[in-house]
């Protein structure tokens, strides 16, 4: 058997795991590992400018491909800088492995230089974390980390590697485990047949059914099954913010996404439904609004791989623990065989009602002669990219506009920080995607607040030639904060104004990219076209949009799902 040092074993393990790119930043405790990286060329390392961005890059890659991303950082500040990225991935169940250097095991606990208890610091925001206690454990620890990260409900896994575990001149036998089995970790591989049968019986008997599909459909690669089942049943489908693309927006059974800024018809249909089939979603507070007023007449079927997500906030009448794709497949089989078909007459009446809601207030905004509307920017980007780009976003109004007005027909295309709501996510996530899909259009929709949280990565884009398109909806304010202040704090704009903004065009140019400022309505479409024609350039589009615009619909705080503001003056 081959003899390798701990550092070489670590890199070899990554090779054997099939890892092509890792994202990171070197430092003292990780130097043996960086040296091992230097002496091979299979695993390529992308050097970021801040460790948080490395995690978001790995995250963007993972969201677009479904495969775990990999991060390498040093101890202390290198490790703590990853925490926001790890928490972002944790909240959205994104598979990822974060390799952290650590001071030598003999120094742990002595407040050594760049020492941080990363196992302790990361514990609340990881699926699991592992510490290397002997160099010969490394292959097994790496295998275990990827296995845990990618199976069941996915999530980030941290490996803490003390420097003396990677010493170059201490060699051990290397063998990468082929399989991993843990007696204490057995994710469900299929749903309970009896429960699935019970659910299908309830579904075909429903008069006002709705399918509420979440990020689990995207993560669980169950989009095809969802489409097939929905078409067989004829039920309306609403997606969560994380589930966007899991069901095609252009499908006639799609009624848009739901929740705080969801469509009027989705929220109305949820509230008035008599049966909710929840597929891989978790009844988040941004969906349910006040839980005690949630969908009073609905019985709930809840499919999720994570039993803890079931009946956490909203009680499920029929819980089904299992992978969404296999459960949906079994449902499809049962519906096909079932002698009882969905109640066609009831469904016609239900769709008539939904169409009336849609006609009353579909997704719409008021046009302006003077201002560029943020919504029309998104519509133009959608048109010019043929609705087929990877779109990442940061967090705030621009995120909601992008999700509302870019119509996604495929899963894994809409990439945003839904659970944690991390500003600064969009650009590095876009970079991670562009690196792995160089031929594909990758657009980062952002705002002048969010983009400044990781703007240093424009430098990384230059180094690795990552020609993403940055669409900066510049309203010269922290728009969502300002909107809440307008609505709830009598327009007292406490700290929501971005004073002294940089000249983004010059800034982009300083980093070696192209910057374009758009502040006239008539320039919007031609300039966007020009930008998208520059295939090999990163273009930073600084677009001055209506600074007074709000995101609507917006659910009324502490109301039910049907209580919404539809504009600044209309409340239903």
């Amino acid at each position, binding site marked *: 058997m081959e003899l390798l040092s701990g550092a070489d074993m670590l890199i070899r393990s990554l090779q054997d795991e099939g890892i092509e790119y890792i994202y990171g930043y070197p430092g003292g405790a990780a130097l043996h590992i960086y040296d091992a990286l230097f002496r091979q060329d299979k695993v390529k390392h992308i050097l970021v400018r801040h460790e948080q961005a490395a995690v978001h890059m790995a995250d963007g890659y993972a969201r677009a491909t479904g495969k775990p991303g990999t991060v390498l950082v040093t101890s202390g500040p290198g490790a703590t800088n990853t925490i926001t990225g790890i928490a972002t991935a944790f909240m959205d169940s994104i598979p990822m492995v974060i390799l952290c250097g650590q001071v030598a095991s003999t120094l742990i606990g002595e407040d050594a230089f760049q020492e941080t208890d990363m196992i302790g610091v990361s514990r609340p925001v990881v699926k699991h974390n592992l*510490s290397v206690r002997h160099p010969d454990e490394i292959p097994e620890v790496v295998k275990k980390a990827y296995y845990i990260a990618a199976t069941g409900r996915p999530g980030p896994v941290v490996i803490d590697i003390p420097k003396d575990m990677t010493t170059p001149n201490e060699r051990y036998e290397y063998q990468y485990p082929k399989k991993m089995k843990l007696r*204490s970790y057995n994710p469900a591989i299929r749903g309970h047949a009896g429960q699935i049968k019970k659910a299908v019986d309830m579904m075909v008997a429903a008069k006002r059914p709705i399918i509420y599909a979440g990020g689990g459909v995207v993560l669980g690669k169950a989009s095809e099954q969802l489409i097939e089942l929905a078409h067989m049943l004829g039920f309306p489908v609403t997606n969560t913010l994380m589930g966007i693309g899991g069901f095609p927006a252009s499908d006639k059974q799609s009624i848009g996404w739901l929740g705080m800024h969801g469509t009027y018809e989705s929220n109305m249909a949820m509230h008035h439904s008599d049966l909710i089939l929840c597929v891989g979603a978790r009844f988040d507070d941004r969906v349910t609004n006040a839980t005690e007023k949630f969908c009073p007449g609905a019985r709930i079927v809840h499919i999720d791989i994570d039993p803890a997500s079931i*009946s956490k906030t909203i009680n499920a009448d029929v819980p089904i623990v299992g992978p969404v794709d296999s459960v949906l497949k079994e449902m499809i089989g049962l519906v096909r065989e079932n002698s009882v078909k969905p109640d066609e007459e009831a469904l016609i009446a239900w769709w008539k009602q939904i169409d009336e809601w849609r006609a009353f207030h579909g997704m719409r905004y008021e046009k302006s002669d003077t201002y560029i509307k943020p919504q029309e920017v998104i519509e133009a980007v959608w048109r010019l990219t043929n609705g087929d780009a990877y779109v990442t976003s940061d967090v705030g109004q621009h995120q909601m506009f992008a999700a509302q007005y870019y119509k996604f027909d495929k899963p894994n295309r809409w990439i945003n920080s839904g659970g944690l709501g991390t500003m600064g996510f969009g650009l590095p996530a876009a970079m991670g995607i562009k690196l792995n899909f160089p031929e594909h259009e990758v657009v980062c929709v952002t705002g002048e607040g969010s983009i400044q949280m990781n703007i240093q990565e424009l430098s990384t884009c230059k180094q690795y030639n990552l020609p993403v398109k940055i669409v900066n909806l510049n309203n010269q304010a922290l728009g969502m904060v300002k909107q809440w202040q307008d609505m709830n704090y009598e327009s007292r704009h406490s700290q929501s104004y971005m004073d002294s903004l940089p000249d983004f065009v010059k800034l982009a140019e300083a980093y070696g990219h192209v910057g374009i400022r758009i502040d006239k309505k008539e320039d919007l479409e031609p300039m966007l076209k020009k930008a998208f024609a520059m295939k090999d350039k990163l273009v930073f589009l600084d677009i001055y949009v209506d600074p007074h615009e709000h995101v609507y619909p917006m659910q009324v705080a502490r109301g039910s799902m049907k209580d919404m503001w539809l504009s600044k003056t209309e409340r239903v």
Partner: protein
Amino acid sequence: MRRIISVLLENEPGALSRVVGLFSQRNYNIETLTVAPTEDETLSRLTVTTSGSDKVIEQITKQLNKLIEVVKLVDLTEGAHIERELMLIKLKATGSQRAEIKRTVDVFRGQIVDVTTSVYTVQLAGNSDKLDAFIQAVGTAGVLEVVRSGVSGIARGEKVLSL
């Protein structure tokens, strides 16, 4: 309602802190906690007493089960079970108090395990209520120090929590 949750845990560094962290992170309540290795040295047995609505208890057991190092768990309060807590208590014991304390210890089936001219150290095992009752019986004024182990529990009958 008070619950006793018994957990088989991988006997690894950091496993206990994950359990404790989960409780504080999700705002659950720990009343007592005991942990020690089992006859299988790769496993620890942890007993936690907590309280909450049925919904909260359901979440606690689900979230505990999600921890990678939790191998198995059982809510002992769902069935017939035996619970015990050990208490060591130091009592002021002079003059006529000495005989009185001795009698009370006998009634509670405890043992005096250390004696000085002015102090008795008493060992007492039982469920938590019994230990509370003993403290009440001897009167808090005479209590110098109390150490309680927290609750350990096991199911009655054939039922076992093992791999």
